[in-house]
């Protein structure tokens, strides 16, 4: 579940990507990324092949479908409500819990919003 979450998060972040791009960004292995792309094909469309300048197969380039972005965001939001995450770098929190860093970040944002409602605030 976490690998799917990370891969879908990388798809949303990049917009256009190859399997290798997703694997590097998400930290998920390329075979797993391919499997997830097959299963979640509804979110993406093929753009073509990416020239490598080397003989052999050329990596396929994909794009997040324009009408799928918000559906994908909603899907990721659902997974987050189940306690899945984080998507980049850090170790997984126990199932059903929010990462402590996220709790802290959102607490700061909640506390600072009333203090400085305008993000253009200048000191």
């Amino acid at each position, binding site marked *: 579940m976490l690998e799917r979450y990370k891969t879908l998060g990388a798809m949303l972040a*990049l917009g256009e990507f190859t399997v290798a791009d997703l694997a*590097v960004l998400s930290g998920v292995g390329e075979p797993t990324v391919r499997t997830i792309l097959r299963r979640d094909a509804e979110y993406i469309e093929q753009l073509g092949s990416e020239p490598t300048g080397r003989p052999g197969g050329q990596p396929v380039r994909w794009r997040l479908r324009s009408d799928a972005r918000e559906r994908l965001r909603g899907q990721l939001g659902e997974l987050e409500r189940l306690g899945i995450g*984080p*998507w980049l770098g850090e170790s997984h929190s126990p199932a059903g819990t929010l990462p402590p860093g996220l709790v802290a*970040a959102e607490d700061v944002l909640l506390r600072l919003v009333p203090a*400085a409602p305008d993000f253009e605030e200048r*000191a």
Partner: protein
Amino acid sequence: MGGNDASLRLPSHAEKAVMGRLLGLEVLSPQISWLESEGYRDAAARLRERLFWSTNEALDQLDECDSLNDFLLRLVKDLEAEAANLPGDARRAAIIVVQEFGDLVANFVAAPYDPLSRLINAVARTAMDYYQAYGTAVPPTVWHCTIPVTTFLGGKTGLSFLSDIHLQARTEFVIGETPSARVYIKLCPRWLDAETIAALPRALLHEYIAHVPQGPYLGTRTHPDADDAFAEGWMDYIAHNVHQSALERYGPSEVLADCLILPWTSLYDATAERFFRARRELRDCDPTAAARCEGAAAARQLHDLLRRLPETRGSADDYLYRLSFGINASSLGSLARRRFAAEVRRCLLRASRSDILVTALREWLTGGIRLEDLPARLSV
């Protein structure tokens, strides 16, 4: 470059104690390890204790009117006498060590210098070089009018988050027409040991990277709160990276690397890691540690993202420095910078917001938006 040496001078008795330990430990610290590895643990302990005893005596003798050079030459004789009292092979090994200290003191007497002042100036110059190299405009007066002030304490003190590092460092903005600052360094001569000396470059880099060049520069600059995740956490991660680069002689400035004691490289590295870890450790008695931890985590995670994104992975360090220095010196206030750190953290923890950060970064990278406008893009 903060080069008012008069402000660095300690009273004569404290200067003797500090200089005795700085020069003494420069030689003795690595050599004591060698003595111990050769089986002369007692000899090593006696040399160290003698150095500490003699420098403590100097600290207690407020009316002593001999010069710093006279004191250092006498210190060499004290250590020679200590070595001469050791038995057999230990004596021969200890004499080699003391001879090296004697050579260092002879060179110092021939061409005196202030190692502390040299280090502070090197750190200040390093910060200036980094901000310049990564395209961040800081008013020249910020660098040139910032004055380091060294003071001492007869008793014991330590960092609030690492009490066995016996120093304190803080920056105060100077109220005036031109933005400048004072960087206060408080030393405890009686407790000045190798680890404290090794922590100095790292502690000073925090002040000169995170605080001295902090914007905005209009009007009186506002000090960040102790629980400011950007100033105390995010920018400390940057200072830590600059310190590591200095040890590896990598990056746009070698001034600090040239000033460090070469045989101490591992000690600098280990002490800086302990310093950085301690700043982020959560403790019941320190409510600000959580903010430092979160700010550093946000910067580290963004660094990780930049290493992985196709557009930035070849120059992730460059982009991180450019972004961090730019935000720190920008016209954004402390609250906006803190919110920025929290928004970055949120986008990197919630995949449902991953595109918000990446899209904003791409807009900045391609010149579509100014760096100062990037934080606002994250709050949608």
